[in-house]
C-alpha cells in the first residue's frame, strides 16, 4: 500500500523482501559494530593487563626482603651495664657492634681492614635500629646470644634477588666477588633468607632502599583523599544540582558553565601555582600538608565531578520530576528523593574518576612542597606529608637499584589503594543503577 518501492516490473514489493535483501549487509555491519565494541573493551582491558603485568613483574620482589641470620651476643655489659633496664639507657646502646662482631665470627679469616669494611657493608645501616627495637620490646634478650635475622644491605638484597648479574665483570657491579663468596657461604649454611618485607608497609621513606617504606606516603594519601573527597563530592554535586536544576539559564550561569569546562583543561600544575599563591601565601595554610594538597586537588577534581554529575542529571527523564512535583514535593525534595538517586551512578562515576585522578596526580603537588623527604608518618591533616604518586616520582628518580622494584611496589600499593577506594563507590553505584 504505502510502499513506494517497486520491483522491476513496477509491481509493489513486499517490505520483507527489501528487508531480506539488505539484511545480509546490515548484519555484516551489526557484527562489525559489535566486534568493534568487543575489541575496544578487550583493548582497554589489555592495556590494564599490560600495565599491571609490567608493574607486578617489576615490583613483586619488593615484597620480600633479604635477611642474614647471625648469632648475636647481646652482652649485658655493653647494652645495659647497670642492669637498670632503663629504656633511655637501652636506646642509647651501640647495637651495630654486636652485629658486626657476629658477622666477623662467621668469617674469622677476614682480617684486612678494607675487607672488614666490605664485610660490614653487607649489613643494612638500619639493622641496629631494628635490633634496638627488638631488644627494647623484649629486654629478656639482654645477656643472651640469639640467632637473629639481621636486615641485609640493599646491594646484597639485589644480589640475592638476582637483580645483579653475577656473570658481569667485577668492576661492573656494586657487589664485589668477595661479597658474593661470603653470601654464598652464608646461604649454604642456611643463613640467608628472604622474609616478607614488613618494613615496606610500616616505615616511612628512607634513603636506604631496604629501609624505605610506603607507610608515610600511604597515610599522606589517605588524609589527602579523605579530605578531597569530603570537600569535592558535596561541592561538586551541589554545584551540578544548582546549575542543572535550579539556576536560571542566563549569562551568569553560562559563564559558570564555561568556567567549569575550562577549569578541566587547566594543566594541573597551574592548580599548584594557584595553591601556592592563594592557599599558602595568602591564607597561610601550611606547606607540604595533606590539607593544602587536598584543597588544590579539590579544585582540580571539581570540574570532573561537576561535569559528570550534570551529564547524569540531564539523563534523568523529566517525567520523573513532574511526577514528584505533581504530588507537591518541593524542588529540593524532588531532587533529593527522585532525581539524585537516578543520577547517582553518573555522579559516582565522576567521583571515582576524579578521585583516581587526584590519587595519581603529581604535578600540582610539586608546587606546594609535597615533593619532599619526610620520614615521619603523618598523624593529621596538618602534618608535613608526601603522597603516593610523589613518593613514586621520587623513588623513580633515585639512583639506587633497590628503588626500582620499590617504585613498582609502591605503584601496586597505590593501585590497591585505588581499588579499595573505588570498591565502595562501585558497589554503591551498582545499587543505584537501573533502567527505566
Amino acid at each position, binding site marked *: 500500500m504505502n510502499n513506494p518501492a517497486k520491483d522491476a516490473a513496477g509491481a509493489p514489493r513486499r517490505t520483507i523482501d527489501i*528487508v531480506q535483501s539488505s539484511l545480509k549487509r546490515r548484519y555484516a555491519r*551489526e557484527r562489525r559494530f*559489535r566486534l568493534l*565494541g568487543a575489541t575496544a*573493551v578487550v*583493548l*582497554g*582491558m589489555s592495556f*590494564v593487563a599490560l*600495565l599491571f603485568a609490567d608493574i607486578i613483574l617489576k615490583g613483586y620482589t619488593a615484597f620480600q626482603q633479604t635477611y642474614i641470620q647471625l648469632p648475636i651476643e647481646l652482652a649485658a655489659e655493653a647494652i645495659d651495664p647497670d642492669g637498670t633496664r632503663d629504656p633511655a639507657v637501652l636506646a642509647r646502646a651501640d647495637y651495630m657492634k654486636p652485629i658486626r662482631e657476629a658477622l666477623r665470627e662467621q668469617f674469622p679469616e677476614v682480617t684486612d681492614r678494607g675487607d672488614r669494611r666490605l664485610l660490614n657493608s653487607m649489613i643494612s645501616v638500619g639493622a641496629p635500629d631494628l635490633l634496638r627495637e627488638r631488644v627494647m620490646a623484649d629486654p629478656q634478650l639482654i645477656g643472651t646470644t640469639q640467632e637473629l635475622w639481621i636486615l641485609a644491605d640493599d646491594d646484597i638484597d639485589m644480589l640475592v634477588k638476582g637483580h645483579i648479574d653475577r656473570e658481569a665483570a667485577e668492576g661492573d657491579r656494586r657487589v664485589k666477588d668477595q661479597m658474593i663468596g661470603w653470601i654464598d657461604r652464608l646461604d649454604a649454611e642456611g643463613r640467608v633468607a628472604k622474609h616478607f618485607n614488613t618494613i615496606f608497609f610500616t616505615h616511612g621513606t628512607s634513603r636506604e632502599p631496604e629501609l624505605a617504606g610506603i607507610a608515610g606516603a600511604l597515610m599522606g594519601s589517605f588524609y589527602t583523599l579523605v579530605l578531597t573527597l569530603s570537600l569535592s563530592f558535596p561541592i561538586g554535586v*551541589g*554545584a551540578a544540582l*544548582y*546549575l542543572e536544576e535550579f539556576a536560571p539559564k542566563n549569562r551568569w550561569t553560562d559563564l*559558570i*558553565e564555561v*568556567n567549569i*569546562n*575550562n*577549569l*578541566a*583543561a*587547566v*594543566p*594541573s*600544575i*597551574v592548580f599548584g601555582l*594557584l595553591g601556592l599563591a*592563594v592557599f599558602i601565601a595568602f591564607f597561610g595554610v601550611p606547606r607540604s600538608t595533606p590539607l593544602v594538597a587536598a584543597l588544590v586537588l579539590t579544585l582540580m577534581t571539581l*570540574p*570532573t565531578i*561537576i*561535569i*559528570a554529575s*550534570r*551529564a*547524569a542529571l*540531564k*539523563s534523568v*527523564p*523529566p517525567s520523573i520530576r513532574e511526577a514528584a512535583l505533581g504530588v507537591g514535593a518541593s*524542588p*529540593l525534595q524532588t531532587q533529593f528523593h527522585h532525581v539524585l538517586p537516578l543520577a547517582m*551512578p*553518573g555522579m559516582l*562515576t*565522576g567521583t*571515582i574518576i576524579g*578521585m*583516581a585522578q587526584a590519587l*595519581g*596526580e*603529581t*604535578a600540582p603537588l610539586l608546587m606546594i612542597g609535597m615533593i619532599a623527604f619526610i620520614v615521619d608518618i603523618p598523624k593529621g591533616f596538618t602534618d608535613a606529608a608526601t603522597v603516593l604518586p610523589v613518593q*613514586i616520582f621520587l623513588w623513580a628518580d633515585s639512583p639506587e637499584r633497590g628503588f626500582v622494584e620499590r617504585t613498582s611496589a609502591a605503584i601496586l600499593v597505590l*593501585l590497591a589503594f585505588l581499588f579499595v577506594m573505588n570498591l565502595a563507590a*562501585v558497589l554503591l553505584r*551498582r545499587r543505584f*543503577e537501573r*533502567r527505566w
Partner: protein
Amino acid sequence: MYSWILMLVVLAVMAGAYQLGRRRAIASAGGPKHIKQLHSLPTYYGLYAALWAGIPALLLMGLWSGFQDRILIALVTAKLPPAMLDGLSDGRLSLLVSDIRNLATGNIVSAEVTPEIQAAADQYARLGVIAQWSMWAAVLAVALAGMAYAWMRTRPQMRARNRVESIFSIIMIIFSSIAILTTLGIVLSVLFESLLFFQKVSPLEFFFGTNWSPQIALRADQVGASGAFGAIPLFTGTLMVSVIAMLVAVPIGLLSAIYLSEYANRHVRSTAKPILEVLAGIPTVVYGFFAALTVAPFIRSLGASMGLDVASESALAAGLVMGVMIIPFVSSLSDDVINAVPQSLRDGSYALGATQSETIRRVVIPAALPGIVGGILLAVSRAIGETMIVVMAAGLAANLTANPLDSVTTVTVQIVTLLTGDQEFDSAKTLAAFALGLTLFLVTLTLNVIALSIVRKYREQYE
C-alpha cells in the same frame, strides 16, 4: 585537637537542636496527631533549629581559630622588653615567636632560654588555655543562642521548609561560585608574572613566533638574554598530542561504553567498567615510563623496519599512551548516560525492525549525546592539561611539525620544566611559564565558549 572535640560538641548540639526543634514543632501543632497543622514536616523545623545552632557557631569557631593565635602572639610580644624587639624584622619576630611557641609546647629549643623568653612562653601557654576555654564558652553560647532563637520562632505557620531550603540553595550557589573563584584565583596568580614577562618579551613574538628556545636565555649573564619565545610550536605540539590521544580514547572509550552498556551482560559490565576506570588512576609517572621505555622504542623499531625515520621521543608514543589514560573519561561517563536512555526508546526502534547496532547508533547515541559530549570534552581537557607523560615520552624539543613521528613539546611540559628547573628571579625564562599558563587558559576558554554554543545547538531531550 581541642577544636576537634569542640566541633563534635557543636555537632552534638546541632543534633539536640534538631530533636528539640522537631518536638517543639509537633508540640506547637498540638501533638503528633496534628502535624498537618504545621506548614512543613517536623523534620524541617528540626533542621531549621540545627542549622541555626550550627552555622553561626561553626563560623565563629572558624574565625576564632583563625585569629586566636595572632592575637595571643600580639599580646605576648607586647609584654616582651622593647629592647628585645628593637629593629626586629617580621621574619626575625616570627623566629622569636616560634622559639616561644616551641618552649611553651615543650618542643626542642636550641638556644639557651632567657628569663624573658621563658616568661613569654609561660604567658603564651597561660593565655592559650584561657583562649581555648573562652572559645569553648563563646562557641557554645552562640550555638545555644541560635538554638534558642530557632526555638522561639518555631510556630506552626513558620515556613520551615522554605527557610531550610533557601539555606541549602545559598550553599549550592556558593558551591557553584567556587568555579568562578578558582578561575579568578588562577588568573590572579599568573597575571602579574605574565605581565612582567610581556614587558621583557613582546607579545607579538610570543603569540606568533615559531621558534621556542628558552635555552640561551638560561642565565642573565649569557648571550642574548632574550632567547626565543615563540609559543606557536608549543601550541601545535599540544594540539598534535591531544589529537592523537583523542583518536585513541574516543573510539576505544565510546565503543567500550556501547559494548558494555548494550551488549555485554551485567556481570561483564560490572567488572569491566571499574577495571577500565583504573586506567584513570594509574599515576601519570607510570604512564610516562611506559611510554618512554616500552611504546616509544617499539614505535621506533617498527618505523625503522618500515624504513621510516622515527624520533626516539615521538609525539605518537606520548599521544597513544595519553589516549589510554583518558579512555575511562570517555567510556565510563558515556556508559552511564547510555544506560540512562529509557528502554522505551530502544523498544520503539526494535519494533520497527532495527538491528541492535542501528538502534544504538541512530536512537540511543543521539539521545545520550549531551552526556557523551560532556565526557569527551572532559577527556579533551584532560589531554590538554596532562603533563608528565609528555615530559617523559615526547621530550622537550619545540619542533614546529605536523609529523607525529617527530618529537614535539607541549605547553604543559614547558610550564613544568620552566617552573621546576633551575629558576631564576625575574628571568624571562621563569616568567614564560606564567605567560604560557595564562595563554593556555585563555585559549581553552575560547574553545569552551565555542563548544558550549555548539552543544547548545544540538541538544536533544527525550520523553
